[in-house]
């Protein structure tokens, strides 16, 4: 995981509605993606939290080595359905 500030859309409890907001599955409240997260934050599996991911030089893009043929990937790609996801050590709670 990189050092950028986490967003609500990085949380496993977040139920996305649109590009600006979602619903918190823990509280059922509407939350803005870019507002500050709370103590119940649980890290969602995203490429940026995966051990196969390395950040590249292009903004928000990196490299995925999880598949037979490595390829570029973007850090915010949700990886909940990815069979190759492997949590990196810094991913914290969730994401494993």
């Amino acid at each position, binding site marked *: 995981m990189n050092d950028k500030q986490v967003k609500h*859309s990085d949380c496993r409890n977040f*139920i*996305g*509605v*649109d*590009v*600006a907001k979602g*619903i918190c*599955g823990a509280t*059922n409240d509407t939350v803005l*993606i*870019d507002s500050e997260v709370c103590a119940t934050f649980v890290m969602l599996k995203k490429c940026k939290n995966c051990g196969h991911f390395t950040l590249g030089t*292009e*903004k*928000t*893009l990196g490299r995925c080595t999880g*598949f*037979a*043929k490595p*390829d*570029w*990937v*973007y*850090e*915010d*790609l*949700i990886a*909940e*359905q*990815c069979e190759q996801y492997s949590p990196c050590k810094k991913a914290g709670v969730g994401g494993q």
Partner: protein
Amino acid sequence: MLKRVAKTGDKGCCAEKATREVKKQPSSRTKQLRDLYLSTLSSANVEFPYWYTRKYNEMEHEIPVIRRAEALKHAFSHITPTIWPGELLVGSKTSNYRGSFPMPWLSAGYFVAKQDELIDSADKGGSSADEVSKFGAGGGNVTQSFGNVVSIAGKFGMRAEEVPALLKLAKNWSGKSVEDLGHKYEQMVPEYATKEAVMKSLVCMFDSGYTLPQGREVVNYYYPLQYGYDGLLAMAKERKAEVAGQADGDGIVGMDRLYFYEAVGITIEGIQAWHLNYAKEAKRLAVQCRDAVQRQEYEEIGESLEWIAHNPPRTFREALQMTYMIHIGVINEDAISGLSPGRLGQVLYPWFEQDLAAGRITEQQVLELLECHRVKLTCIDCFASMGVVGGVLSGNTFNNLSIGGLTKDGKAAANRLEFLILEAGMTCESTQPTLTMLYDEKLPEDFLLKGIECNKAGTGYPAWVNNRNGMEFLLKQYGPEGMTVEEARAIAIGGCLETSPCSWSELTLNGKTYQIPGGSGQPTSVGVHFIANPKVLELVLTNGYDYRTGLQVLPPHNKELASYDELQGVFADYYEQVVNCLVKTNNIQHDIWRKQNMAVYNSLLKPDCLAKGHHIGNLGYRYNATYNVESCGQINMVNSFAALKKLVYEDKRYTLAEMREALLNNFGYKTAEEVGSFSFAQQEKREGSQQQFDVIHRDCCTAPKYGNDDQYVDNVLLQYEEWFCRMCTSYQSLYAHPMYSCQISVSTHGPQGAVTLASADGRLCGTTYADGSVSAYPGTDRNGLYALFASATCWDHTLSQNSQLNLKLHPTAVTGLEGARKLLDLTRAYLRNGGFHVQYNIVDSKVLLHAQQNPEQYRELMVRVAGFTQYWVEIGKPIQDEVIARTEYEGV
């Protein structure tokens, strides 16, 4: 019969506004889900395109159909399943509630140009429609960037952090997309230079091959409903063994059957994984949920999705869920606008009937499920360019559900479930699915009155379509492919009101057999779309030169146009030059599409792909003669011809040069763009302009007008129709079938009106054309509805895929049961006279005026535009102005 014309300058806010008589409410669950929609932004992401592209690139060694199937499987298997609280039906295009995504494998140029301007999209003629197309600024449209949200194509919001990935994907497809490959080869058409000019001048609205290569068609749910996905996998495996290595008499594509069946299996595995991911998510939510009722609902969702991932549905709810997932699966496979569920009430009737009889469900529960279904279909967005989504579609997706019609053996097909579909259309007012009543004399009166009740709710649906007319058209067009009268009875409407070929399939449920209808033809969103008829006439008068762009669009004819016959002759010649270059170039685009981007999932659903072993591109469908030529602005063109005939050629009141001068000077008025209104009634004289053109403008405005049962002008329409419908059939699609006429405007009468100079009917520069194809120009139908009907039916509507008549009625005109019966009688009168289609906006124009001035108060207000119902606040101003300006009838 009374009527009035509203003007956008009216102070609607001060006048008393009439409300609609019928107003119902959804269940609290549905209301919550619909309210969530109403507060949701149209959101795009790149999850599906990322997974698709990654696998596609990995499979570069494979043949195209397998490569595509593997890419689809990879994408479906990996997209994030989201389940929103309270949902009974689950599944969505993306992880967002109102989500969509670009398909750069179809068209990547826009995004690449956006980043580094390497490609000037104007060179391809694709930008003109974007320039003059307008979205409504309200509702869920993200018309401007804000915070970490980037507005794309004037409608879709995308997270800023995903934009680099979007651009990376676009670059990946640059030079390989259907658009780019098609462009490479379309330039080899000798008339390509003309095509370029035609597109830049917006004589034609858009290329169909890479924008919306499928759609305006009826989906078919039969095979998964009957056999389940495991059954289809077994079928594909068995057929693979039967055809492997054998041409079976077809030396061209006989061998391709093996690859198609292999692709079917791969795609189904992806679809199954997609279902199972939802099941897994539902079960995860159930474990976490503290509310017992919600927990049980999650568990039921999980169990249901797990079952239908493999097996045929057991219950009405499972069948509805399965059809909905099929629907989303198809529109995720390709950029599709107007995928229509068809006669869903007849498809689902077996489960409805048996569940009710067994006490497994109540009608109230069915109604709530149908309401949920409405919300889910309303959440569908289609990602395309501004010109297409805004200018053509007004953001609509045209999931048209047909009701009524006839059974296979010729009886009235209406059933109790269709009553509930109409009821849900009232309790849960929403834009999708729009409804079409396949009107047949055999339908019961109470069913028809239920349709009228729904109209009175102001929803704009159901549209009323002449079932027998539609069948007659189908038999003419698809008879050579083997369509029988029995099969024509399976008719349904795809998209706005595109008559679509369908067929019957025998479904067995618990030992009882049913004949269910379903789509069996190619898309009808394909071909030449849309030609601005008044613009072609303008070019005739300007010797082929477009004053807006400064382009010589068509070669100068250099004729004096000394007679009306010569005027008509040059018009026909110009029109045919336009169609000729567009047919050829679009055929190439679609040919690239079928070779590189063929439908696999949609193909396996439709007869007879599984039987033949061929996908759509190899003519697997039962009916393939679906390509058409679409026109727009027909009534302004007809009125203009009538004015020229009368004022120039017969009465000789003006020379053609004087008329041309008046048109080029917009009769002394400012342009619509300068005024900021696109309604004819709202235009302003140019300051300092002389009175030079006042008399000629008055004469043009008072020349004979369509819609008044006036033979003079109706004969112009008749002559045009007989020529146009015949002319279309002289062109051949890439599938070597004759094309046909399609006469709907959708929303193109806004942008195409915006690029058209003043016309000889008195219409001013840049104002919106008349909508539909047989609707009168606002304010010009002065002799009442029956006179309008007589004008509209002066020609044979069965020569065309459709015609379109929109009427605006004041709510007080149809109050009570008496009003309902009058409206039904009115509808009958039109359809019995040979009209193909009529639909109603039952709304007080003062409400629309107030809504235009105070959009924040009208998020839920819906209006009928031209074959579809849309939220008022999401419609661009040119179309809003036109809807307000339409003649409003205060009595029927």
